[in-house]
C-alpha cells in the first residue's frame, strides 16, 4: 500500500485519522492504535516479513534492556550481537543472491557446483527498518538515549507507518521523547501535515511519474541505439524524477506523521542548489547521510586520524551508501564515484568551486551529480558504458523514442523548482512567503487543487476502458 494510491489517500488515511482523532486525548490508546495500524499497514504489503521484524524487534529490546547495569565488555558484546543480527536480516534478504552469484562467478573455474540462489523477493523498507533498529541499539549502547521504557514504545518506533517504507530514517535518540509521549494533534498539525502530504502526492504523481515515463523508456532502450539528445534528456528526466519522487515520498511521510502528532526531520533541502558534492550530500537524503556519519563515519575515526584515513573513511562510507541502495555492481561503482569526488573536494575541488562563483559551482556540481545518476540508473557496467558513449553522440543505428507531450513541461517545471533555490531571488521569495499571509493562503489553495488533480490522475491511470469487451 503506497501513500499516493487512492486506496490509501482517499480511504485508509481519512478513516484511520478519524479514529485516531477520536482518541486524541488518550495517549496510551492512541499508541496502541498506532502500533496496530502500523503493523497492519506493513502486513498488507509484506505479510511474510512482518513476523521476522517483530521477532527481531523483540530481540533488540531484550538486548537493550540487558545492556543496562552490565559491564562494558558485555555491553559491547550485546550491541555487536544486535547489530550483526540486524545486518544479517539485511544481508539475507538483500544481498544473499548478489553475493552467491558473484561467488559462483569467481569460483567457477575452481568448483564445479554452484551456490543455489535463494530468489527471495526484497521486502519493501527492509534497509530503512534495519538502519533504524541499529540506531536504537547503538544509541542505547552509547548512552545517547535510554532503552525504550516499554516494548510497546520500541515497537512503535520500529513500525511507525509514515516512515516505514522509505524513510526518513529515524534515529532513536531523536525520536525518544515523541515515541514515549506522542503529542496531542492540533489544528495546525492537521493543516500543515495535510498540505505537506498533498504537496508530496502532487509532486509524485504530476511531476515525478511524468518524468519517469520518458526516463524509463530511455533506460529500457538498447543504449547503443540512443541519440545524444535522447540520452541527455533521459538522464535529465531521471535526475529530476529521482529527486521529485524520493522527496515527494518524504513529504508524504513527514506530512502524515505531522497529522498524527509526530515531527520528523527534513530529508531533502533543495539539493540541486548545492555548490559542491560535499554540500549536495548535506542536502540529499539527509537522514541516510547523517545516519552514516553518526553510525559509521564517526566510529571509523571520521576526520580525526589524518588526511589519508579521512579519505579512506569517506570511501568506506560511500561504498556502504552505494551498496545500501541496491545489490549490484553499479551501486558499488556509484559509491566509489561519490567517494572519489568527495575526496577531490577535500584535496582541491571545494576551494576551486568557491573561487569559481555560485553559477559555475552549481553547474559543475550538477554535472557531477547527474552523471552519478547515470551510474545509479543503468543496470550493468556494459549499459553504463554504452549510455556514456550515447551521451557523447557515439551511438550507431539510432532509434526514435516516443516523446510524450508532458515531458517538456515536466522538465521545465522540474528544472525551475530544483534550480530556483540556487538563484539570488530565492531568499527574497522565501521572506515574502513567510511574511505574506495572503501568499501562504494562495499557496495552500494551489496545493489542494494540485492534490485533487493528482488524485484524479492516480485514479485514471489504471482505468483503461474499452467501448466493448472483445474476444
Amino acid at each position, binding site marked *: *500500500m503506497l501513500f499516493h*494510491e*487512492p*486506496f490509501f489517500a*482517499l*480511504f485508509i488515511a*481519512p*478513516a484511520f*485519522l*478519524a479514529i485516531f*482523532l*477520536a482518541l*486524541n486525548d488518550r495517549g496510551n490508546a492512541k499508541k496502541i492504535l498506532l502500533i496496530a495500524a502500523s503493523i497492519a499497514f506493513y502486513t*498488507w*504489503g509484506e*505479510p*511474510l516479513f512482518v513476523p521476522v521484524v517483530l521477532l527481531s524487534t523483540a530481540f533488540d529490546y531484550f538486548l537493550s534492556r540487558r545492556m543496562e547495569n552490565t559491564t562494558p565488555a558485555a555491553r559491547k558484546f550485546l550491541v555487536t550481537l544486535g547489530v550483526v543480527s540486524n545486518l544479517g536480516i539485511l544481508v539475507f534478504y538483500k544481498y544473499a543472491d548478489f553475493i552467491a552469484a558473484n561467488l559462483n562467478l569467481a569460483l567457477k573455474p575452481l568448483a564445479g557446483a554452484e551456490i543455489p540462489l535463494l530468489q527471495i523477493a526484497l521486502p519493501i523498507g527492509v534497509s530503512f527498518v534495519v538502519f533504524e533498529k541499529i540506531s536504537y541499539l547503538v544509541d542505547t549502547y552509547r548512552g545517547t538515549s535510554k532503552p525504550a521504557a516499554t516494548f510497546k514504545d520500541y515497537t512503535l518506533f520500529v513500525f511507525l507507518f509514515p516512515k516505514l517504507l522509505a524513510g526518513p530514517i529515524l534515529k532513536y535518540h531523536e525520536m525518544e*521523547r*515523541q515515541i514515549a509521549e506522542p*503529542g*496531542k*494533534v*492540533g*489544528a*495546525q*498539525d*492537521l493543516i500543515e501535515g495535510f498540505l505537506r502530504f498533498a504537496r508530496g502526492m502532487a509532486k509524485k504523481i504530476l511531476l515525478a511519474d511524468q518524468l519517469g515515463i520518458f526516463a524509463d523508456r530511455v533506460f529500457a532502450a538498447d543504449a547503443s541505439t540512443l541519440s545524444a539528445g535522447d540520452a541527455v534528456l533521459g538522464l535529465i528526466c531521471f535526475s529530476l524524477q529521482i529527486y521529485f519522487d524520493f522527496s515527494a515520498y518524504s513529504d508524504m511521510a513527514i506530512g502524515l506523521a505531522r497529522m498524527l*502528532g*509526530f*515531527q520528523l526531520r527534513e530529508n531533502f533541502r533543495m539539493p540541486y542548489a548545492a555548490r559542491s558534492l560535499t554540500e549536495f550530500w548535506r542536502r540529499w537524503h539527509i537522514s541516510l547521510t547523517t545516519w552514516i556519519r553518526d553510525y559509521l563515519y564517526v566510529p571509523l575515526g571520521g576526520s580525526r586520524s589524518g588526511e589519508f584515513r579521512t579519505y579512506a573513511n569517506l570511501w568506506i562510507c560511500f561504498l556502504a551508501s552505494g551498496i545500501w541502495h541496491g545489490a549490484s555492481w553499479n551501486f558499488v561503482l556509484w559509491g566509489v564515484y561519490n567517494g572519489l569526488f568527495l575526496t577531490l573536494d577535500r584535496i582541491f575541488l571545494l576551494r576551486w568551486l568557491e573561487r569559481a562563483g555560485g553559477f559555475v559551482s552549481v553547474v559543475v556540481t550538477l554535472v557531477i551529480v547527474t552523471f552519478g545518476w547515470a551510474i545509479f540508473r543503468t543496470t550493468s557496467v556494459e549499459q553504463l558504458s554504452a549510455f556514456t558513449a550515447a551521451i557523447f553522440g557515439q551511438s550507431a543505428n539510432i532509434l*526514435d523514442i*516516443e516523446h*510524450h*507531450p*508532458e515531458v517538456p*513541461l515536466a522538465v521545465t517545471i522540474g528544472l525551475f523548482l530544483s534550480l530556483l533555490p540556487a538563484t539570488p531571488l530565492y531568499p527574497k521569495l522565501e521572506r515574502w512567503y513567510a511574511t505574506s499571509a495572503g501568499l501562504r493562503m494562495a499557496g495552500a489553495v494551489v496545493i489542494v487543487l494540485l492534490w*485533487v*488533480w493528482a*488524485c*484524479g*490522475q492516480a*485514479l*485514471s491511470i*489504471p*482505468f*483503461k*476502458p*474499452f*467501448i*466493448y*469487451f*472483445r*474476444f
Partner: protein
Amino acid sequence: MHNNFQMSENTGRAILIGLLLVVPALTLWNVYADAYGKKKITFGKLAGVVEQAQPASFRVQTIADGSWQKMVNTAVTNAIPSRPVLIKASNSIRSALFGRYGDEQVVAGDKGHLIEKYYISEYCTRNLDALKKNAPAWIAKLKELQNLYAAQGKIFIYELTPSKAAHLPELFVHRFPCPNSERDRKEWLPSYTAMVREAGINLMDNATATHALKGKYPLDIFPQGGVHWNAIGYTLATNQLLAVINRQGFTPPLPLLKWDYKISEIARGLDRDLVDLINVLIPNPRYPVAEVTYEKPSCPAYKRPLEIAYIGGSFTGPTAQVLNLHGCLPDLKRYTYLYRGVRGGDGYKRIKNRLTAQDILPLRNADIVILEENEAVIPASKHAVEFHRVMVGR
C-alpha cells in the same frame, strides 16, 4: 512534541471526524452495493467497460502473494464515490494541456476526429508480403466453413467491415509513426478480397463498399467522435447483406430496406462512442451525424422459424439490429465476438452472456451464418478462428 493549537472543542473535533469519515463510509457502501446489486452513490458516471479482475478468496496463500490485497485495493478504489468526477477532471486537464486523453488508446487526428490507436497501428503495419504468406491458410479455413454449410444446403456469408483509419487515413497517418509503404496500405485490402473471391468464398465486402462512399454524402461515414460507421454506413451495409442472402437463393427473397436520413448536429449513442470513452467533464458531441428512419417493410412469411447466426465484432451491432428489426429477419441472433453474448429473436433482446463452445455447437445446423471480420483484424481474427475450430472440430 507539544503543539500550540490544542484541539479543545469536542464539537469541532466531532465535525472533523464526521467529515473525514464521509468518503470512506460512502466507499464502503458502494463496495456493498456492488456486491449486492444496490444503488451506488457516485458523482458522475464513467463510460466504457473494463475487465473485472478475478476475485481472490481470503486464504493464507492469497494474502502471502498479495493477490487478496490487490483485489481489495481495486474493489475499494473503484467504489470511491468521487472517482468518476476526479477521473474526468484529470482527463480534461490532460486533454486541454497536452491534447491527450486519459485512456491513451484514444487519440486525435485532424478536424477533431478521434480514433483508437490500435486502428492506426494496424493500418500502418499492413504488409503485403506477410498477407500473401498468411492469408491462404485462413482462406482455406473459411472455405471449409462454407463447404460445411453448403453441404447441408445452408447459406454461409463472409463479411468484411471497414476501419476508420483505412477510410480516413489522411486525418491520422501523418500524425503518428507509420513505417509501412503507401503501396502496403493501398493494396492490402484489395489483395485480400481478391484472394477470398478467388477461393470462391461468398464475400460481402462492406469494407471496400464503405470506402467507396467517400464524398458521396454530405457527411462522412465515420463520425468525428466515433470509431464505428454511422447510420448511413451500416444501413447501406445491411442492404448489401440482404442482397447477398437473396443471391444465395434464399426464398422467399427478403425485401431491401427503404430508408431515409437527416443530419443532426448532436451525436448520440454509437456516433459518440469515443467522445464518451475519453471521459472528460465537458464532452463535445456537437458535430454532424446521420439519423436514419426506416419504412416498415412487408415481410414474407416463412414456413418455420429460421436459425440465423451473425457472428462478429462491434461493427455487427447496428447491422444485426437493423436486420432483425427492420430487415424481416426477426429470428436473427448476433453472437458478439462469438462468446461475449448473444442477442436477438423477437424484439432483439439480450438472450445470454458469456457463452461456451457448447452454446455455439448447434450453429452447425443454422440456416444462414454470417461471419464478420473487420479489416483491421484480418486475416484470422480470434472469434472467427474459434468459430472455425468449434464448427469444423479441429
